[in-house]
């Protein structure tokens, strides 16, 4: 991938979008660093390489919309709330944790944002929420992030069937990073996600772009139609997971990893970057360092009552 193109991706961004992308990137990197130091209990799943998806979607959603996230949800959370303190405190079990440290990395509820750790489980729930919204708050929608691996779960099809039957305001965002834990998508998914979605009469959109504005412009009218009663929308992003599934469990070859890194939106080590990028990158890195230092110094969390 030519470096020029990568620069194009970041240089066309607004400060706001670039700042959010960098916040997520440095947050995830710091998390792996803390994990390496033995400071993170249990497990965690980073979204390195996929940050642009929730950043692109963020302004298309409003406060009345529900967002359902999954195990790989730090980017989804940060794009919605820009709250690295609450998220890191949750992951580290410190005071100020969004859910008192009970939920941890993959079980977070904040307002109309909910993540849970079972594949596919959120889709019937999101369908029920969309049903309630259709009747009680017309114009609002439920959006659920899933992965390519999630399409192996029966719950996905039960939910799509009902959402299409009842023309519900549901958006299913698939981050297809080509690998389900260690299993390549080609070894676990027959046919295509698009064909599966269309089989239920759902509208479908596929994005290979990593350009935030391009994605946003493409999605905006589709999301609006969902709000207006056009029924469920399934979106697939061809994306790339740079890091391991969780920690230290990457079985991909050097060649496969190189391929993933070639699709990173973040400039390669040593590549020339603009002054703006360098400044904002340093700011985001500094913010995350400060967040980590502050949160680690906090007392352990207690349940919220």
């Amino acid at each position: 991938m030519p470096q020029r193109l990568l620069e194009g991706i970041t240089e066309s961004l607004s400060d706001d979008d670039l700042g959010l992308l960098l916040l997520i990137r440095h947050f995830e990197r710091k998390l792996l660093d803390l994990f390496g130091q033995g400071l993170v209990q249990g497990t965690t799943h980073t979204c390195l390489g996929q940050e642009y998806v929730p950043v692109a979607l963020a302004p298309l959603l409003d406060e009345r919309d529900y967002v359902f996230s999954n195990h790989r949800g730090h980017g989804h959370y940060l794009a919605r709330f820009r709250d690295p303190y609450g998220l890191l405190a949750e992951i580290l079990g410190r005071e100020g944790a969004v859910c008192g440290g009970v939920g941890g990395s993959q079980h977070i509820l904040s307002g109309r944002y909910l993540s849970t750790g079972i594949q596919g489980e959120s889709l019937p729930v999101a369908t029920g929420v969309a049903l309630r919204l259709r009747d009680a708050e017309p114009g609002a929608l439920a959006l659920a992030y899933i992965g390519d691996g999630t399409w192996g779960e029966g719950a996905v099809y039960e939910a799509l069937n009902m959402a299409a039957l009842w023309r519900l305001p549901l958006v299913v965002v698939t981050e297809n990073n080509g690998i389900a834990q260690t299993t390549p998508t080609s070894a676990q998914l027959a046919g295509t996600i698009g064909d599966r979605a269309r089989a239920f009469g759902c509208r479908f959109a596929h994005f290979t772009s990593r350009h935030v504005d391009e994605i946003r412009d493409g999605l905006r009218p589709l999301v609006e139609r969902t709000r207006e009663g056009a029924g469920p929308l399934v979106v697939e992003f061809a994306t790339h997971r740079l890091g391991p599934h969780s920690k230290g469990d990457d079985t991909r070859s050097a060649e496969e990893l190189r391929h993933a890194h070639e699709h990173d939106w973040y400039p390669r080590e040593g590549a020339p970057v603009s002054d703006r990028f360098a400044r904002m990158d340093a700011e985001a890195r500094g913010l995350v360092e400060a967040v980590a230092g502050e949160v680690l110094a906090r007392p352990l969390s207690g349940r919220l009552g």
Partner: protein
Amino acid sequence: MRTMRVAESLNQALHQVLDGDASVRVLGEDVLDPYGGAFKITKGLSSRFPGQVLATPISENGIVGVAGGLALAGGKAIVEIMFSDFVTLAFDQIVNFAAKSVSMYGRPVRLPLVVRCPSGGGRGYGPTHSQSLQKHFIGVPGLAVYEVSPFDDHHELFGEMLARGEPCLLFEDKILYTRQVFAGGVAGDLFRYDTLPATPETGQVTRVYLDDPEQADCVIIAPGGMTHRALAAMRTLLLEQEITCLLLVPRRLYPFDVAPLAPLLERAGAVVVAEESTAGGTWGAEVAQQVHSRLWGRLRRPVSLVHSAASVIPSAAHLERDVLVQDTAIVRAVQELLS
């Protein structure tokens, strides 16, 4: 008071629930009129409350998930699982979503959700349409397990479950559907009944007794679906052997703390727990463990567990009868305890 069958009483209760609260949705397979559900418990609801009743595809896991979503977003939901055997398909949504969500986010989250489960055998429906699966849902934090009894005010029962704010399973014995509800404190020609007030730990418990609940030779603890078999056993024991029993029917099977019942159990000194579940890992074993912990050395014999055999439930009537718990098994258990 006009007597009615338990099925009619449940149906009437659902009418009252939907009439009283526009945020309640009833959903399930084939619940619309004119069919009104496989056991007619939802009859008339869709005609009277068309916006509140939803017929679904055959997708138990999905349906319970949708109900969880309705509850999460500020509504209330009552799901009908056509046969409780199919609730295994919704195990993930019940155990890993609904029951978890009420507490795993570090603070209480309200999820007013009831999953109705028509259960039990005796109708010849065979191994996959006759089970009593209550035991598989006992001991799940954030999940309450209830069972319909003929003594209950079923409208109040639904109110209690929806007010609980956490998911509830309601087991409804399919033979009990066909029986009359009891009223006026009289259970048949021999026995009287009253209720012990609910506590948060124990829930409401109905006492059925001859003259004096404190003068029984043996206590039988049984869920509502066992009521008529327990009454038949009590009748036989009384008329043939002058043994008096006290029957305790808890409205809620889990959480269920036996503490408030301990004085009654200790006075009798003999306790049977009867349920239709097949053998192994039963609700009764959970209850017995609690009784033993409290009353060790103060009972004549260990608590006797009465349940169905360790077997699939056959279709043919004669084979089914051999497997399912009968009143005679309760009679035998009481006799052995007192011998």
